[in-house]
């Protein structure tokens, strides 16, 4: 009992001392900003480290534990591969910065990827982002970030004026609702992905298949909510009738009532936005209830992960997925990446899920090289208009042009379909490698 008194004495006395120190609680605010002005500068100076000759740090945030740990780990290996290619001489790979060791304009300075685990939790992501900026002195932040996390971290990167390059595709990141000066997006926005989906449906109709009605099933998360809003707007634009629009709780225990409602509505095309857990459960529930739409278009998420194939095997046949990348795009450095990646990922193949995020790492390195310094303002300028030869980038883009919201409007996407076990590009016309099977057979006919 005695010790309790010591502790309670200890902190109860705090009132008198702290009040005096802060000049009374009322004006607590006033004394503090004086301190803020003094120390603010110090904190800021320390946030942008002088360009050390040998190593430039790029912050990498990905879920290494938690629900999406497997996927996060795969994307991290891809990023490590890209950094290794940049840091060593790879004359044989026709990729940006591959030819010489390190960044030529900075005396061959090496890139160091400082990895941090977000555990798939926004609060953890922001704490780790702070650590990367202040402890590690990273000059830019990127990683495998959901749209929700991109928003949370952008608060930090805006405050400390460090560029954040994300593939988080939420349209609210890029449509100017929130003004970010230090957020850059080279990948597609939801709007482009969904345009591709509807254009594919137009092609199906052109080819004589009856695709008139569409239904949406999306997760009640940041990822799902953004996609479904754009899907609904575009449905009106492209003239498709929306027969069902459902959201489901993430990691749900059963999706049977959703599938029952889908069977009722019986749409020609179903667009799904969800992560691996619910996508797998949805496919199995649809198989159990013996129903499959003519066209099932997955908006990336769980559809482009390696688990999708390992968990569902042959059941994945005929499923479409929009995406920013596909293995059969005509860029010669893709083949060498596909060869090199399994050595990092003990056998897992390079896929769409990881392409977008490690492309960001390559672009950051290229822009640092272009800016010639790690000063954040100069780097931001370079990121705003990167002059890089897109032929040397493993993404399907022909060119890069950034609009005033720092969004790459020239980014184009592809739509792929699972045909005998792997994704094959079926849209757009110029990148097509196989004809789409527009009407998928029922489960019993497979």
């Amino acid at each position: 009992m005695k010790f309790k008194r010591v502790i309670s004495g200890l902190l109860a006395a705090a009132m008198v001392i702290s009040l005096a120190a802060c000049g009374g609680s009322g004006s607590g605010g006033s004394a503090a900003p004086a301190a803020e002005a003094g120390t603010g500068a110090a904190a800021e100076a320390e946030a942008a480290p002088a360009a050390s000759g040998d190593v430039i740090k790029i912050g990498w945030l990905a879920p290494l534990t938690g629900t999406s740990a497997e996927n996060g780990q795969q994307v991290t290996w891809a990023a490590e591969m890209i950094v290794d290619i940049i840091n060593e001489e790879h004359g044989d790979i026709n990729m940006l910065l591959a030819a010489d060791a390190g960044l030529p304009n900075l005396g061959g300075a090496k890139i160091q990827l400082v990895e941090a685990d977000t555990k798939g939790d926004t609060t953890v992501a922001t704490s780790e982002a702070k650590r990367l900026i202040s402890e590690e002195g990273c000059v830019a932040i990127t990683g495998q970030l959901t749209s929700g996390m991109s928003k949370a971290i952008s608060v930090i990167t805006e405050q400390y004026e460090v560029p954040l390059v994300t593939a988080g595709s939420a349209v609210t990141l890029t449509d100017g609702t929130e003004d970010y000066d230090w957020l850059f997006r080279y990948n597609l926005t939801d709007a482009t992905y969904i345009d591709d989906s509807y254009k594919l449906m137009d092609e199906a109709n052109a080819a004589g298949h009856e695709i008139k009605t569409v239904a949406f099933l999306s997760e009640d998360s940041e990822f799902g909510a953004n996609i479904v809003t754009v899907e609904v707007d575009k449905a009106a634009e492209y003239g498709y009738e929306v027969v069902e629009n459902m959201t489901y709780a993430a990691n749900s225990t059963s999706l049977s009532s959703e599938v029952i409602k889908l069977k009722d509505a019986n749409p020609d095309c179903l667009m799904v936005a969800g992560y691996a857990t619910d996508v797998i459960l949805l496919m199995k529930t649809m198989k159990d209830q013996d129903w499959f739409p003519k066209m099932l278009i997955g908006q990336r998420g769980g559809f482009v992960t390696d688990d999708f194939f390992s968990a569902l095997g042959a059941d994945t046949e005929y499923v479409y997925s929009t995406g920013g990348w596909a293995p059969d795009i005509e860029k010669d450095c893709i083949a060498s990446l596909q060869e090199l990646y399994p050595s990092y990922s003990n056998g897992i193949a390079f896929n769409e899920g990881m392409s977008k995020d490690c492309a960001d790492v390559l672009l950051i390195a290229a822009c640092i090289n272009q800016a010639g310094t790690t000063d954040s303002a100069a780097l931001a300028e370079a990121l705003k208009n990167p002059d890089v030869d897109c032929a040397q980038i493993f993404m399907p883009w022909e060119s890069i042009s950034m609009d005033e919201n720092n969004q790459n409007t020239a980014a184009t996407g592809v739509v792929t379909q699972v045909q005998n076990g792997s994704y094959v590009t079926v849209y757009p016309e110029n990148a097509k490698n196989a004809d789409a099977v527009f009407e998928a057979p029922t489960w019993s006919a497979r």
Partner: protein
Amino acid sequence: MSTFLQAIYEGLINGTVYAMIAMGIALVWGVMGILSFSQGEFLMIAMFIAYFFTTATGFPPVLALPLCMGVLFVLGFCIYKTIIYKALQGPTLSQRLITFALSMVLVNGMLMLFGGTFRTIQNTGMDGAFSIGPLVIAKNRIIPLIIAICIFCFMLWFLNKTRQGKAIRATSMDKTAAELVGINTEKSYSLAFGLSAAIAGAAGCALSYYYYCYPSVGGNFQLFGFIAVVMGGFGSVEGAIVGGMIMGLVDSLTGVYFNTAFKYLGVCVIFMLILQFKPKGLFGGK
């Protein structure tokens, strides 16, 4: 009409899983007054066992049932002897925290051992579906239903007819009185905890037929198990079964007829209503 039938059927199937988890929770709650947060994790471990059994031997998961229940019983027994026994001496609140921390350890332990890949059993030997009239019945959802029914009967038989079962029930009614009449309450406690883990094992084995297997799967079912227990009547095993069934039905009916986003909201609202009129739950246990 067919959607209504299908909704009822699917609701019952899901209800059996909730009921099995709720039974485990009710048993432990009734006997020891502990709210076990780690019930979901026992379910998850059983799913892993069923998965590895099927991939290794190629037999359908139902043959893994004895293995799952056995391993989980032993695990539950050991956890009781080491952690829960000591926890019973502490205040009830820390008992709840201990099972919560235990579930944290189990989830992350499995994540460390088996990594974060999603595993499902693709060929359960019961593929395809047949339909009776408008009702589509998936073959690989029948076995879980049968497993669940067997477990319900086994538990009701065990608790009501066997000596040890009656001893457990007596201990749950009044520990001191049970001790007075010579019941080894220590044995009842450890047996009850082991049994509740074994029931979760059976639920896991049944679930592996149509659900993916992943370390954090337990959490998805945990809250529903609790709600089913309280709805059915605290600590009453029969109440837990009925509670679980109601949960499944409400879950699928709200989903189909109201709005799938409010599926779980519907469940919680029904739960609140029942608690207002019957604060002790439907069967009003202890």
